[in-house]
Every structure is written in C-alpha cells, then in structure tokens.
C-alpha cells in the first residue's frame, strides 16, 4: 500500500464516520467516560492506597471496563439488531433471559456491601451485576412487545396492564432475589415511560404519577410523625435518616451528611481537582454513589452544573436521533435508553443533594463500576446503531 491508498482509506473512514455515526453523541459519551475516569482516580486514590496499597487500583479496573465497554459499543453499532428481533419467539427469549439472569446470583453470587448483587464472570475474573443486564434486556423486550401490540392496544388499559405486569414481575424478582430496590424501581420507571411514550393517552399516566407522589408523601408523613415506625425496617430507617440526618447513627445518613458537607466545602468554584478533603476517610464510598459530592467539592457548583448540562446534551442528542427514527421499535428502544439515563442521573444527584432518601444509584459513566459502564455503553451502541439505520434509510431515499 502506498501513501495514497492510506490517505484514501483515511478519507473514506472520515467520510464514513461523518455520514454514518452521530459524532456529537459519541463525543459527549467519550467526554463523560474520560471525565469519569479522572474523577474516579481523584476520589478513589486515597481509599485505594489505604486498602490496596496502590492509588490507581480502582482507576485501572475502571479503564479496563471502559475499554471493554467501548469495544462492545462498536460491535453493537454494527449488529443487525432489526434482523435479530425478527427471529421467531424472540420476545419470549429476551424476557426469559432478562428474568433468568437475576437467578444467577443464587448459585454464583458474591456478597459485597451487605447484598448479593454480583456474579463472578468465569475466565475474565471481573464481577458482573445481573441487574444491569436485566435493565438492557427489559428495554429491548418492552420495545418489541409494545411494537407488536400496536397503538390502540397499548393505549388501552389491557395493553398497559400487560406490559406493566410483566415489568412488575421482573422488578419484584430484582428486589427479592438481589435485594436491589433501586434497580427494580429503575426498570419499573423505564417501562412506565416507554408505555407513556407509545400510547396516545395522558390521563392514565398523570393519575399514576399523582398516586405515586401521594403514596410517597404519605409514607414520609407517616415516618416523620411516628418515630418508632422506622424501627425494624431497613427501608423506613433510610427515610427517617433522610428526614433527620443529624440524629441518625445509620451509615446512609452519615454518608448523606458528609456529602452535603462536601458540597458546602466546595462552594461555587470548588477546592480544585484532587483537593477534596472529604474523600479522605470521612466520606464513605467516595468513588461510587457519592462521586458527585466529590465533584462538587473539587470543581464546585459550576463544575457540577456543567456536568448536568453534559448529561442533558447527551439525552438531547438521543432525542434528535429518536426524531429521525421512523421505525416504531427503534423509537421505543431509544426512548427506553433515554429514560434509563435520565432516571439514573436524576436519582443519583437527588440523593447526593439530600433531595430524596439514599437509594444507591450510580451516576452513569462517572461512578466506579464495571458492569454499569459496560451495559450503558452497549445501550449507547444501540442508539448509534439505530442512528446508523436512520442515516442509511435517508440516504436510500
């Protein structure tokens, strides 16, 4: 090959990228991954040095997970998803897979942080959270399910109930088998959003939202009025310690309070990258669920809001892709993935700012966590796959 052929192929590749892939979305995702790595290193270095003798312990593991995730993402972009979904009985297979993986924790589970949520992956040596697989598969399953039902059916109570019923089964299993309430709630919310988007109805959903808010308000009122009510129940204790973090001796309240201190300490412009004081011993799990608090402390409110804008931009880019999607299944997949990202971002930041009780949701691409990064990148790959299909379609016109 001479220089010209090299140049030609490079030009071809660039042209291909520009025409086939949404570089805006790709850039935002790559930025978030890079920023996430930086923050994981900053937040975890002390803990890693203390517990493992190597400050880059978590950082290295996260790099491996991110690289693996990016490879999977690119594979996903070029996968013939549509063809796979046309296979016979594919809906049932996907659904049973989504539910089936949950049960893997029973024989292969590893207990960590007091819950059995991880399974050991043979040969690779990493740990995997089946809940992440369930979330992805449930999005695909629901998109296919709703797509097969048609507009009228999903708008009807019957169609809605069927979708939500199947989702509830998955959620309940997630909660009971892996003791993972946050994943169960996320799956439920994703399904709710997907049904909402697919149906032509508003009233039903507004009613459900109103009911949900009323139930939450009632629960809070009950816990706050009755001190002893929280005793004995792990979930209710969390609500109680959220309402009165100063009085609580529970770890989650301590975590939340220290997160608030970190935000206060950071102020508008932050202490500077790497200068967090709270991440040193005081703030538990600074690189996991509480990484946003470290970001606030080191980069200030300005840095935190900038990060939120990046997330909003990412979801906006996905919305634009959805607009160009004529295929109903593809549209619903994008909707589900958008919902997934939006819900995780909102829940995580809400917990750190003390707006809701501690649920234990990670911040997409930023928090430390291999399986989360891997499956979120596969989801991004799916969105880019759909975008590619859209572009091909518009070119073909």
């Amino acid at each position: 090959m001479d220089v010209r052929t090299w140049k030609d192929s490079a030009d071809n590749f660039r042209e291909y990228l520009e025409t086939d892939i949404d570089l805006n979305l790709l850039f935002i995702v790559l930025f978030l991954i890079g920023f996430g790595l930086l923050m994981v290193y900053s937040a975890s270095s002390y803990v890693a040095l203390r517990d493992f003798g190597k400050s880059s312990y978590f950082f290295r593991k996260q790099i491996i997970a991110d690289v693996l995730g990016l490879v999977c993402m690119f594979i996903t972009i070029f996968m013939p998803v549509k063809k796979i979904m046309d296979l016979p009985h594919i809906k049932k297979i996907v659904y049973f897979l989504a539910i089936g993986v949950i049960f893997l924790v029973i024989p292969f589970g590893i207990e960590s942080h007091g819950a059995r949520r991880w399974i050991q992956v043979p040969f690779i040596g990493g740990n995997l959270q089946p809940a992440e697989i369930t979330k992805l598969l449930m999005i695909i399953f629901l998109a296919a399910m709703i797509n097969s039902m048609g507009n009228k059916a999903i708008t009807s109570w019957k169609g809605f109930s069927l979708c939500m019923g199947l989702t509830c089964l998955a959620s309940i299993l997630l909660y009971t088998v892996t003791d993972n309430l946050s994943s169960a709630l996320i799956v439920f919310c994703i399904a709710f959003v997907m049904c909402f988007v697919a149906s032509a109805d508003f009233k039903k959903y507004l009613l459900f939202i109103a009911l949900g808010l009323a139930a939450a308000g009632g629960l809070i009122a009950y816990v706050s009025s009755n001190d002893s009510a929280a005793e004995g129940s792990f979930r209710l204790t969390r609500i109680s310690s959220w309402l009165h973090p100063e009085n609580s001796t529970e770890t989650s309240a301590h975590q939340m309070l220290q997160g608030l201190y970190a935000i206060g300490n950071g102020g508008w412009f932050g202490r500077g990258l790497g200068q967090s004081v709270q991440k040193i011993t005081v703030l538990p799990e600074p690189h996991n669920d509480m990484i946003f608090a470290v970001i606030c402390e080191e980069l200030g409110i300005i840095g935190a809001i900038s990060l939120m804008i990046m997330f909003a931009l990412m979801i906006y880019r996905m919305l634009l892709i959805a607009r160009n999607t004529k295929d109903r299944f593809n549209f619903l997949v994008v909707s589900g993935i958008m919902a997934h990202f939006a819900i995780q971002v909102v829940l995580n930041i809400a917990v750190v700012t003390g707006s809701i009780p501690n649920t234990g949701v990670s911040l997409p691409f930023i928090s430390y966590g291999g399986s989360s990064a891997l499956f979120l990148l596969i989801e991004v790959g799916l969105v880019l796959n759909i975008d590619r299909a859209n572009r091909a379609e518009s070119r073909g016109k």
Partner: protein
Amino acid sequence: MALKQKKKKSNSRGTFTARQLRFYKLSMLLLVLLVILVFLSIRLVKIVRDHGEDYQRIVLSNQRYDSIIIPFRRGDIVDSKGTILATSEKVYNLVVDASVMMTYDDNRYLEPTLTALGQCFPQININELRAYVTNNESSQYHILAKRLTYGEISEFLNMQENNSYIRGVTFEEEYKRIYPMGNSCSTFLGYTIGNGNSGGKYGLEEYYEGILTGTDGREYGFQNEDATLERTIKPAVDGYTIHTTIDATIQGIVEKHLSIFNETYRNNYRQGNGAENLGCIIMDINSGEILAMADFPTYNPGDYMNTDPLIGCNYYEAVENAGGYIEYRKSAETITQEMIDQMSSDQINVNLYNLWKNQCISYTYEPGSTAKPFTVGAALDCGAITGNEVYTCNGALQVSNYFIKCHTYDSGGDGVVTVQDSIAWSCNVALMKIAQSLGTENMCKYQRLFNLGLKTGIDLAGEARTETLVYNASTMGPVDLATNSFGQNFNATMIQMISGFSSLINGGYYYEPHLVSYITDSNGAVIQTIEPRVLKQTVSESVSERMRQYCRATVMEEGGSRRSGRNARPYGYAIGGKTGTAQTIPRETGQIVISFMGYAPADDPQIAIYVVIDRPNFAKQDNVKYACLLCRDILQEVLPYMGIYMTEPLTDEEIKYLEEKQLENTLRYTQGSEEQSVETGTEDPYEEIELSEITDSTGETASVYPRWMSYPIDEKTGYRVGPDGKYYDADTGELATESMSILDDTIPVNDNLDGNTQTE
C-alpha cells in the same frame, strides 16, 4: 407554559401522526428532566449559600491538623571522651481514636483492632478498652499507654500495615530522658522533671537548661483567604549537646571508692551510712576543669523519686524558725525503710531535696586544717613571713582570754616548728602565730582572693552562698583570726577549697572551675567553646613553689615522722597535700569532718583532689587516716589511668598489694626492678610510723614489738585501749587522743555557722 402547549397539542391530536405524538411525548421527558436538573441545581446553590460556611467549618474541624506539636529533642550530655551521660530517646504514646474504630455498625474495625492491641500490648485490658470505645464513640483522643519504645510498638505497626481493618490507633511521638549511667554522675547531672522536656533540676540539667532545650515544632493547618486548608510544618529545633570535662572512668573510680567506704563503715558505730556526707572532687589543676565530682549517696536521675537512697541518711525535718522561714534541720536520726513508709509526701520531699543537692558545691562546713596552706600562702605572699621563721609549740596558745590548743596538747606540743613543719605536722600554734603576723586585714583580703565567701561561678546549679559565713576586716577579732588560721570558724564549700588550693599549687592562677568544655548543635557543629578562664592571681609563682614543697612534705617522707598525710600517698607516686580534721558545731560532741586535699604528681602537678568525709561512722571520728586512705585508693587507680607514670620505688609489699588488687603498676615501664629491690626494706612506712609513734607517746626507744600492740582492742570503737585509758589506732598505733577537741564551747563562733541547717 410548556405544559399548556402540550395539552393543546394533545387536544388536537387528530392533526398529529402517531409518530409525531410519540416524539412530543418523548420531548416532554427531556423537558421534565431539564426541570428536575434545574431544581437540583437550585438545591446545590441553596446548600452552598445557606450552609456553605457551616459545612466548611465542619469539614475543617474534622481534620485534626491544627494542633500537632512536634516535640524537640533535649540535647545530650557527654563526658570528655564522648561517653553519653544523659540522652533523649524517642518514645511513643498509644492514642486511641474511638470514633474511627466505631465507624461501621458491624464493628469491622473494632474487633480486629482490639485483637491486635491485645496481642501486642499485654498490659492493656482489652475488655476495659472495649467498654471505653463503645461508650465514648465520639472520643478521638484517648491516651492508652505512655512512653512505649519503638521495639514495643513495632509488632503492632507491622500488623497495622498488613491489615486494613486495624484502625483508630495512632502513636504520638515524645522524648524520654535517659541516664545510661544509672546512679553514677547524678551529683553534677541533676535530673529532668518527669524525665521529659519539662525542664532540668539541679546540676548541669538546670544550669544549661537554655542550651539543652530546643524549640517545639508544629504542624498546623489554617484557612487562607479562600478558606482553603493549608498545612504547614515548622520543624522542631533540637537542643544543643554539652560536652563536659568529666571523665566517666575517673568518675566511676571515685564513686566506687566512696561506695566502698560507705559499705565498709555502714552501721559501724551508729545506724546509717558510713558518713553523713561523702564528697570528692578531682580537678585539672592547670585549667579548672572538673574531671570527677561525686558525693554520696547518689540517686538515679532517671528514677529520682525513688526513696531507696535515703535509707541511712540523716533525717531532715522542716522547722519554722523565729523569722517565720522554714528551715530544714538535720536530726541525729537516720532514715530507715519503716520511717519512709510512715513519712508524709512533704517529709519525703524535704529529704529528697537534700539527696538531690550536690554536696560538693552546696554543702558548707568548716574546712579545718586544709585551710592552713591558704594562711601560710597569704603570709608568704604579702611578706608577713619569709618562710624561714621558726615557731615554738607548747601545745596551746593564749589568744585574748581564750586558751586555744594544738592537737598535740596532750603530748606537750610540737616543740620547734618551721613553716614547713607547721603545714606538714599541721601545727595550730604555729599557724596562729603566722596569722598574727598576717593581721586581720590581710587575712580577710586573702580569703577573698582565694574566693572564700564568694561564689566560684562553677557552671552548676545550686552553688551555696558563703558571704555571711566568713568574717570581714571589721568583724574579725583576734580570736577569730586565730581560729580562721587553721580553718575553723568560717564555712566554705568543697569547690571553693579545691579551686583555691589549685591556685596555690599551680603558680597562683585562680581558674574558674567548670564542667563544660564546648557545646555542639544537633548536627555536631560546635556552637560555643568554653576556654579555661583565669580569674585572678592569688599568690606569686615563688610562693606557689614553696607551697608545693610544704604540701609535699605533708605526705612524703621529708616531712618527718609527724607528717599528717603519710597515708594519702598512692604506692609508686609522689604527691602533695594537706589533711583536715575539723570540729563541727556544737563543739565537744566529737563530730568531725575529716578531709584530705592534695595534688599529683608532686613534682609536676596535673590534678588536684579533695576528699571530704563528714562525720564518719566511727566511735572516734577524728582519725584523718581514713580520708587519706580513701584519697590513696582513688589516686592509685586514677593516676595510672591518666597515663601518669610512677616515679617512686615500690616495696615488695606494695607490689604484692597492687597485684592482689589488680591495680596497674606503671613503675615497671619506667624503672628497672633491681632499683626497686635496693630501696625496699628501709622504706617501709608502716614500720617507721610504728616506731616513731611509740617514741612520741612513751619516750622510750623502740623494742622489737611496739608496746601498743599488746593493748586490748575495744570492741565498741575498734581502738586499742592503753593502760592510761588512751586510745590507740589498732593498725598503726597512732594515738587517738581525747584532746582533739581543740576548740571548746567557750570560744566564740560566727553566728551564721551552723552545719546542721540550711535555708531553702
């Protein structure tokens, strides 16, 4: 606004396709997300605006960087050869942070930490600690054990490094004062309060406090203008090391012999130590550098509150005197363990004060005959006598209305006495006559010149003031002049006496006595050098030469049979010196201070030595022989150690003695053995003494066996008692006469003199 728009669209959905509707509904999701993100941003802003400062403060207070003191290291004290006499060792306080141990409800830190503590520190009661930690969850600073050495904590440090669940234990650094010599050297070292950096007491530790102490460092955090935590370390400045002129080997020899003396004569006549006070100073005669300074009993500066050394000492009690001051009065009673058990802590402290004092510089006493060279030197130097005078001693002299005896009063006096004899035989009558020609004015002038009544300025804390304990020209009467001439009726300290004596011997140069030769910083760089300082010329070189001659005659055979210091001569050496036998107040009680002050070698003086035995534990205390023998035993070891060769021939007996005691015989390297054997036989000093004593007391010529050898030994006193009722020394036949009471109660005494009290 947005919601209304959506409603409008949904109302007229007929105009929308299903795809458009889906998109609008999805857009609503983004809208809701944006609304929520805006709400969360507002919440962030509110947290910072409403609580930012509070939270910053909480975060800062969580960090304990603001008050970590880095302790300085107190400087070492070393001897002239670099042997460490006092040093500071880093020790560790075990601090427990209960809040860290209790971080998690599942006790994941607590139990591993407690187990490790239990394994490494058997002295810690783990159950008590568990109770403390669980009951005081917020406690961050609890000292569990103090002053552990690195060896004691290293095992735990290893475990802590290998197990991340061992938490909440830190080690705080501190320094502990170590005195590797134990009881030795306490005389001049002093101690440090609490064995730490709380300041020195007595001796070098107190005198050089400012040199030995450094400055604490500090690691502190502060908020700068941006409220950022800044951490700054100001390192500690360590104290300086002082290099003393003391030679630990010489010091050890001196202390050994003082201790042997005490062991030998403890409970000999009365209950208690071998003497009320024992002291010895060895000094470089040509520089004023102290080579050894010891008193007895000593104490361990590392354990200075220990009451064991008090046993056998005289009991001191605090008495309020007429002036309203508290006086510490020495009683005749000696301390026993039973007494200590019954003493109050105040009483124990009073007695410990006395123990901690350096008797060589703070104890004042009447020096007795060791002051005679001062009187003679003064008379020669001012021309009052020429040195060729001859005096007659009839055993006593009438001064004003008082009859002052010589120690030879009972045997009819010394007879014809030259100036040399007056020193060598220690004749009081001749000295009184010399003092009369000197006059009160000159006497007082020369006393000041010899620094009597003044402080020597030695670099040790606690030197006694003696200003009121001497006469001045206007207060000194003829009787005072007479008694002062032989060292009674004024008080001095040991350091005053030996410093003055050194100047008499070394050519008249009065050196300021000192213990420190130079000071180095913690890196070993010399900060200050302390050169020997000549304060004044006391006598002329020619007078000094005569004094060397007289003092030599006191010890060596040229002084004749009656010389008082013959027992002080170490075998193989020629030395000079002067004995002292001083009565204490009240007189007539037989309470005597015996002493020997000398220099060696006689022809080339290098060191001065002064041995004082205050009220020895004998029935009859006035036997100066014991001070001489103590001096001899010390010099016998010190001189060879200092590389001073023997110059005098050794008898077979002396060689045998040296071999038995495994003492060095440096004569062999300088002189042939043949020469020695020629001298032996005629040189036996004991034989000569025995014969001469008999001649003196009985007037008869010698028989083969001296008569006193047949006298029975009195078991109570250890003396032979003759038919005339007189006591004779059991070994030498020396007459231990009753008439040693030269002064009786009628002779006026300086009101300020009182050997038994001291005012704090």
